[in-house]
């Protein structure tokens, strides 16, 4: 178990409600640097909300959250800007910028936020595109790419900021089945290279293969947590057993 000092993401007692609905009922989670965590559970269990709290897209109501030793303070714009340079996010809907080319999509944030000069940003963008297997698509536009290709560009765009942690919010759920593999392969490479990953996913086979730890969420709480062999092989609680049986078709 990671101690507070060595944890790159440290969550204590996190609570979040939407109106009368308490979606996160006190989350405690410590993530070590380089760890790959898969978050699974039924829809409505709070998985995406938890992820979105970590980079400040959702404002939590109680508890504490720190990344790289620095606590998340919502009102502090400079602190949030710093946080989002350390934490990257890939979305289910890709959210590429449609009016920019693939290359410009990747270069935009580094040039604006990190004040990288154009030549360096271009070189970095090309390198990242090669890394995700899309070197030839630098000048293409998002609407010319398939879903799987767009998602890989989204990954390259997030990597351009050189984050310490990558949040993946159901990044293959909106893809046609035959396009899922190409995206998962990229993520697996990132995991092997030592990136700290927090993924909300329904891809159980992938989660089993790649993650160090699985977190099963149920009704706003972490219900069970452990290495893949334990979660899949020896589920302890009724809810986890029910969930696992429901997803095997």
């Amino acid at each position: 178990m990671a101690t507070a000092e060595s944890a790159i993401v440290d969550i204590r007692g996190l609570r979040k409600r939407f109106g009368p609905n308490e979606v996160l009922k006190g989350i405690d989670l410590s993530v070590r640097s380089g760890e790959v965590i898969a978050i699974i559970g039924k829809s409505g269990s709070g998985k995406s909300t938890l992820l979105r709290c970590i980079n400040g897209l959702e404002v939590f109501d109680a508890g504490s959250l720190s990344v790289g030793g620095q606590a998340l303070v919502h009102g502090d714009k400079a602190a949030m800007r710093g946080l989002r340079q350390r934490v990257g996010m890939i979305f289910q809907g890709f959210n590429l910028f449609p009016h920019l080319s693939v290359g410009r999509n990747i270069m935009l944030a580094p040039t604006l936020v990190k004040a990288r000069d154009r030549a360096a940003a271009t070189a970095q963008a090309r390198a990242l595109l090669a890394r995700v297997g899309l070197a030839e698509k630098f000048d293409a536009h998002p609407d010319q790419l398939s879903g799987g290709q767009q998602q890989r560009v989204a990954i390259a765009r997030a990597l351009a900021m050189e984050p310490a942690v990558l949040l993946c919010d159901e990044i293959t759920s909106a893809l046609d089945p035959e396009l899922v593999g190409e995206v998962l392969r990229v993520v697996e490479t990132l995991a092997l290279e030592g990136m700290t990953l927090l993924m909300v996913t329904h891809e159980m086979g992938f989660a089993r293969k790649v993650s160090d730890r699985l977190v099963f969420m149920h009704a706003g709480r972490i219900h069970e947590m452990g290495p893949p062999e334990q979660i899949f092989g020896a589920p302890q609680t009724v809810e986890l057993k029910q969930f696992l049986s429901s997803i095997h078709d």
Partner: protein
Amino acid sequence: MVEFSLWDIVRNLLLAGRWTVVLSLIAFSGGAVVAAALLLARLARLPGADTVVGLYVQLFQGTPLLMQLFLAYFGLALFGMNVSAWVAASVALTLYTSAFLTEIWRGCVNAVPRGQWEASAALAMNLGEQLRHVIAPQALRVAVAPTVGFLVQVVKATALASVIGFVELTKAGTMISNATFRPFAVYACLALMYFGLCYPISAWSRSLERKLSGHR
């Protein structure tokens, strides 16, 4: 009795038409500047901006333009200013235009998917960078057609300035009609001149709409 030819009528109307064009351009450009400022205030979430701008829009959209023109004319005079029809008409039409344009543009910004805001925020961009590089380019594309379409409304609105004595197309038409005793011909020409000004703009707005929505 002097006989006035159709050409006499048309020629005089055309001369007055200049002022319709000038007033339209003043109102449209001034209104655009104010509308942009109001929208930015709303987007930057300045305290109270949302409520104030909302009320401003409701005021101008919920009262007759004629009343707004009278209020500008008599109201500005109250403050001791020497109010000409030019000043009153320009002020009233500029504010009127700004209220409608800011609502149109707000709708266009809202049309940009939320995911664009989230992705740019996740990349550590601040509001200014988000607006300039991600949101505005997309909102602008949607905004062109209705903005050009509203220009037609502005041209038509200038006709009301005649009521406070501003000499543009409609006022000229009334004066020419009284002078020539050919009201049918005069008002028919008047209508056709406005049509000649407005129809091309309307058609352009429609073609812009087709081009920019079929594009992607």
